[in-house]
């Protein structure tokens, strides 16, 4: 096949990938979009396989079979609640693959037409080093994110004195090493570059706490795209450049949306350590003296049954307790009991990855017509009888609007306090991730429902029946 013909097929694949993202603008077109994505990938792989450089196929087939089997098995087995750690793990693989491809290009540049060993073209060296560095950072960074999400290490930010200084020093060192590598093309420096980038990836994500994971995952998503881009520049392959740019900008936009959802800057998130300072002592004097009204499942069932409209606000606690199915059952029963509106309100940073709550509700067969984003539903709380908050805390805290000294000040919140009655399903009075106490718990129109989210929903269902 001629070079220009394969370039043309790569262009078709690129367009397929754009269509895959385009499809996600609505749930109706999304499945067709995914088919475009699969088609694009198939075209890209087949086009590459028939290029004359590829003469030996057995290792490729073995690799595809092993990888394909593992990927298929994992994707079929995974629970939707474990989605964030799965995505983090997948990101790490892209990073490692980028490192491998860069190493192969360094060892055998002839195969890619970028020079001969020891005399690789300067511009290719720069691009190779950048792709390699980003790939390695993505690899170890994603491993840390995976370990935190999976609960293998504590989700608390890991901070040590001089951390930022060490990271800044390492960053500068990496840039110097890249320059040195381009000038000398020495294998030793290549290895050193890999090692330091791997270490940098670890150190970069360690200080970032569990609830900042939506930003971290988006950021690593972005990195994996830029790594592919770097490799694309090295190999002068437009398909890799286009795809990398699409993925990179997608991850960057998601990071931005997540940061805005918390009213924090990306720099603030990356520097980490959020949620440690105020986590130990509850804020405000005499927090223990105030009265909390706690109720039983029967009380909740009674209030819910007699409401005209209910808005359910799910959070990470719902995911942990796997309460989405019981919750949907409860909502169905309420509709049967004559509650006119039962809707769901999703905060942008609820859960551990962008859109996490939407997927869990979809899994529980909630119609997406009943699920609303913050901007679309926030005005309706004032005319709602009951706000049912399940496993969420910080995203409902009015301190974000009133208390200038609060760490979450300025964060957009769901205005559940405007509803006539607020029900909080929570395991204890513990403060949320930000370590800020929620004054809503002490209000007269609030009732706390202490217990596991799933059990509580099941008990409410029993009481309703």
């Amino acid at each position, binding site marked *: 096949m001629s070079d220009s013909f394969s370039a043309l097929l790569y262009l078709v694949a690129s367009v397929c990938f754009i269509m895959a993202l385009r499809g996600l*603008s609505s749930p109706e077109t999304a499945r067709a979009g995914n088919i475009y994505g699969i088609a694009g990938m198939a075209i890209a792989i087949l086009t590459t396989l028939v290029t004359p450089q590829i003469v030996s196929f057995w290792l490729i087939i073995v690799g595809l079979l092993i990888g394909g089997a593992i990927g298929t098995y994992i994707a*079929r087995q995974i629970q939707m609640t474990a989605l964030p750690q799965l995505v983090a793990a997948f990101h790490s693989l892209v990073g490692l693959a980028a490192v491998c491809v860069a190493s192969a290009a360094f060892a055998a540049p002839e195969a890619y037409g970028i020079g001969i060993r020891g005399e690789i073209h300067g511009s290719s060296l720069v691009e190779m080093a950048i792709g390699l560095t980003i790939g390695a950072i993505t690899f170890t960074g994603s491993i840390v994110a995976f370990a935190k999400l999976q609960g293998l290490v504590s989700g608390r930010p890991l901070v040590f004195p001089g951390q930022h200084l060490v990271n800044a020093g390492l960053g500068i060192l990496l840039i110097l090493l890249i320059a040195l590598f381009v000038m000398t093309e020495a294998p030793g420096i290549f290895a050193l570059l890999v090692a330091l980038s791997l270490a940098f990836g670890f150190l970069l994500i360690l200080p970032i706490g569990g609830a900042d994971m939506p930003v971290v995952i988006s950021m690593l*998503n972005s990195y994996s795209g830029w790594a592919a881009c770097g*490799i694309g520049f090295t190999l002068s392959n437009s398909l890799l450049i286009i795809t990398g*740019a699409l993925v990179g900008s*997608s991850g960057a936009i998601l990071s931005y949306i997540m940061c805005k959802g918390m009213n924090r800057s990306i720099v603030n998130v990356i520097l980490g350590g959020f949620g440690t300072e105020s986590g130990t002592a509850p804020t405000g004097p005499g927090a223990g003296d105030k009265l909390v009204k706690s109720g039983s499942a029967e009380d909740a069932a009674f209030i819910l049954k007699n409401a005209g409209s209910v808005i359910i606000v799910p959070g990470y606690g719902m995911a942990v307790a796997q309460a989405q199915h019981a919750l949907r059952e409860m909502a169905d029963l309420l509709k049967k009991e004559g509650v006119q509106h039962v809707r769901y309100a999703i905060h942008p940073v609820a859960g551990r990855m962008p859109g996490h709550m939407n997927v869990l509700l979809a899994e529980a067969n909630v119609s997406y017509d009943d699920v609303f984003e913050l901007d679309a539903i926030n005005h309706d709380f004032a005319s709602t009888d009951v706000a049912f908050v399940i496993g969420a805390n910080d995203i409902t805290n009015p301190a974000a609007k009133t208390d200038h000294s609060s760490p979450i000040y300025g964060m957009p919140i769901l205005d559940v306090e405007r509803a006539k009655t607020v029900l909080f399903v929570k395991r204890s009075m513990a403060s949320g991730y930000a370590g800020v106490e929620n004054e809503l718990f002490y209000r007269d129109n609030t009732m706390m429902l202490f217990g596991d989210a799933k059990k509580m929903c099941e008990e409410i269902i029993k009481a309703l029946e």
Partner: protein
Amino acid sequence: MADPASLAQRAGELAGDAGALARKLDALSQQLTMATQQGAHAGTPFVFELTVFVLAVFVGYYVVWRVTPALHSPLMSVTNAVSSVIIVGALIAAGPSGLSFAKIMGFVAVTLAAVNIFGGFIVTQRMLQMFQRKK
């Protein structure tokens, strides 16, 4: 006018001119090939790649902003699957005959990317299957 001697002389002159022109052309074409060869590894292709890159970033920017927030999780898993197109580079490394360091690296990268491609697309499909309008 039709003096054969002068005609022959003119023809000779013309032939000389043509020869000079041909030599110039040859030199020019040599310069041109040299220029393209130099260009292949310096300015032009890089600028071309950069053009593609910048345009793709813009396409990505506008397309991704149109993605509905409810589908941000599938967006993440599908971009993850798609970024495994890096397998193209891996296949070229794993393709030559004989065993070498580059070939082994290529094999590892093919395997890793394959996990991602199959896993990413299947998990995206599973998710999207769940987003249905009920009733």
